[in-house]
């Protein structure tokens, strides 16, 4: 990271160049109109300055043609910027299917990252260059915001729900991570680094860390908390079987359906009465206060691993 004065941030992700191109376009348009207005005002102010107290200018009341011109042309330029910009926005928020997953928990005043393989980091995130990374994030307390200027991405992090953003780093290096939503006393201190490494170095860093994958930790919790007693792998349990549930469409009591994403799984553990699966009784107890946000992520990682039969549920991390 630079510690000397700079005027423009580094471009370190696949989207940075596109955002910058759009930025320069809007800057040119803005500069053009600002300079145009400034020059016109100065020119008119000088050319038509009052020469004597007897000056009596003739009226120029208006011109429909001019009004239409200077309404329609700016509108057209605005629409162009809108469309170009919307395309970039969609790319920032549509996560590619092959993205590798990292979980982020923000709390006053630190960032806690969890890799699927079990690596935990505080205020630092190691990622391989050239690989799409999807961040699934939540907050333990107030609203924070995950901001990496070099990647041109930002996503608010909210309590009691998951938000996601993705990026693909293009340059090895170390980049600022800032919290961008005011969150109290040490808001300015809630900063860190994204450390982008060559894939081989990243693999080495991963294996150097402490052992248990997220899903294995989740499996342990699944036993310890007693989930396994109702959520058996056959269909005879008091609760629905969880093999293959992640990403599937679940039928709820009352006829509605819901897609079983991370948020659904989290809600089912914390407020099980909110959505009852069709055909089952509302008897699941709540685990609110009994599991931390990290433990929730471990359980979710484990459940995600429960693929339908034919696949090895103990296969290592993606």
């Amino acid at each position, binding site marked *: 990271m630079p510690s000397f*004065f700079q*005027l*423009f941030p580094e471009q370190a992700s696949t989207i940075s160049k596109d*955002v910058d191109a759009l*930025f320069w376009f*809007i800057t040119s*348009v803005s500069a053009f*109109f*600002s300079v145009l207005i400034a020059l*016109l*005002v100065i020119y*008119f102010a000088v050319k*038509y*300055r*009052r020469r004597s107290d007897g*000056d*009596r*200018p003739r*009226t*120029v*009341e*208006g*011109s429909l043609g*001019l*009004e239409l011109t*200077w*309404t329609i042309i*700016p*509108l057209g330029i*605005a*629409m162009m*910027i*809108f469309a*170009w*910009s*919307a395309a970039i*926005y*969609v790319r920032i928020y549509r996560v590619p299917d092959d993205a590798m997953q990292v979980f982020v928990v923000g709390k006053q005043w630190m960032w806690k990252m969890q890799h699927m393989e079990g690596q935990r980091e505080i205020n630092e995130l190691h990622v391989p260059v050239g690989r799409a990374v999807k961040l699934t994030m939540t907050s333990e*307390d*107030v609203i924070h*915001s995950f*901001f990496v200027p070099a990647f041109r*991405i*930002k*996503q608010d992090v*909210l309590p*009691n*729900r998951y*938000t996601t953003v993705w990026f693909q780093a293009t340059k090895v290096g170390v980049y*600022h991570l*800032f*919290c*961008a*939503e*005011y969150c*109290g*006393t040490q*808001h*300015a201190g809630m900063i860190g680094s994204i450390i982008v490494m060559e894939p081989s170095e990243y693999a080495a860093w991963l294996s150097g860390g402490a052992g248990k994958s997220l899903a294995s930790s989740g499996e342990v919790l699944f036993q310890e908390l007693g989930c396994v007693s109702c959520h058996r792998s056959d269909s005879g349990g008091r609760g629905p079987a969880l093999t293959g549930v992640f990403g599937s469409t679940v039928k709820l009591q009352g006829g509605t359906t819901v897609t079983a994403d991370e948020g659904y799984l989290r809600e089912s553990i914390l*407020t099980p009465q909110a959505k009852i699966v069709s055909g089952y009784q509302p008897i699941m107890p709540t685990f609110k206060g009994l599991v931390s946000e990290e433990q929730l992520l471990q359980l979710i990682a484990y459940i995600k691993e429960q693929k339908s039969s034919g696949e090895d549920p103990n296969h290592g991390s993606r």
Partner: protein
Amino acid sequence: MEAVEPRTNYLNADYGIKSWLLTKDHKRIAVLYLVSITVMFILGGVFALLVRLELLTPGPDLMSSDTYNKVFTMHGIIMVFFFLIPSIPAVLGNFLIPLMIGARDLAFPRINLLSWYIYMVGGIITLVAMVAGGVDTGWTFYTPYSTAVSNTNVIPTAVGIFISGFSSILTGLNFIVTIHRMRAPGLTWFRLPLFVWAHYATSLIMILGTPVVAVTILLVAMERVFNLAIFDPTRGGDPLLFQHLFWFYSHPAVYIMILPPMGVMSELVTCFSRKRVFGYNFIAVSSLAIALLGFLVWAHHMFVTGMSIYAALIFSFLSFAVAIPSAVKVFNWTATLYKGSISYDAPMLYAFGFIGLFTIGGLTGLFLASLGTDVHLTDTYFVVAHFHYIMVGGAIMGYLGGIHFWWPKISGRMYPEAPARVAAVIVFIGFNLTFFPQFILGYLGMPRRYHYYPDEFQVLNVMSTAGATILGLGYLLPLTYLIWSLRYGAHASANPWNATGLEWTTPSPPPTENFHETPIVTHDAYDYEDFDFETVPLQEVKVG
């Protein structure tokens, strides 16, 4: 100079504190507001200087983080709710609207006085909350930090803001009824000065938007007092619901802040070019368009909260649309200068400054309406620079231009022209040095509301603080010479600027009743080509 005969006007019609505190005269109420908001502006400005001083160095040198967070919060609250929102409407609007439409007062003079008292009560409660410990939520009060986490004086501050909102609502209500029902004979809507159109549009926003933020901030206070669950995510509440309701007012609020100075612009540019305004109908309708569209864009403050992509597309589109009527106005004012007879009096210098700085500020809004760039720029110093360009470079310059222009009418004295022009230039320079570097800081990635920052941001911060010092000194000048002029300024004639407009047909200062007889209007606004110019000396013409 000949001795001036004493004449009864609204300032000397009655003496004593009671005659001011119980007045029903819209002109006296305007002066009461002028004093109050000047005090608030100085307070808010002091907080701003403290922020800029701390940001001279990357580290946390001058104060603790908690104190810094309180200082920027209080700067925002005072400037938004207690300075910018009332400023032009409560001072110039109150003073001028009855005069401009040929009326003796507003429709509801006692409600007008009540609105000032409400403003004072709200202001005092908020200031007491600040002195007794402060509040650190940011002027935006985002939940759940404000409802469940912050341990500062949120409740009294929220109550103070809630109360002062009614001041705004009553002012807007008064203006709407007055403009609808009390125009002089012959004064049709499309003969109104554009200052009046601007205040009409502003009043629509005031009455429709303020109640929403009022009930929202009330519920924040109630949640803290009664432990309600409305914004508490641990009990099923949605913190984003607060943001939607908050911004539903607070975005239109920025149009409350910019429409009145735009109204001032139309008066200044025409008077100091001695020409009709170019495109009167378009400027009038643009004011209404801004008011309407302004209510449809609030979620552009929330593009990175995780909202649906479709909603984001709609709000982005509309945010571009709302820029167009403002652009139309700027083009029309510029065209008004064409083939005019332009003088460089201080009000006109402020007008030039406004046009330039508002243009830049408005254009930088495009970066934020644009989704792709907003992701990078939201919550950074780019946004801070953008809104200060509009609110300080735009609104405050419009306010100062208006104060100077109508100073002779309000006080009966001329301000000294030379220091005024110097001040306008100093303010312009200081302003740009303060806020232009912040655009660059924002794109670099410096987030808002940071007490301390990485070293590489320091040079730009130092430039910004240097500018703030110059800007502060610039503001001290009008404060000084305007007060000086009350005693030593030349006595003003009824129409020292040779301007059209009914307010200039009354003496300076006007009598309490404004008009001896209700005027009958047969001309359009700004009819300079038919205007009977007199070379009127600045000093008052001796009567009789």
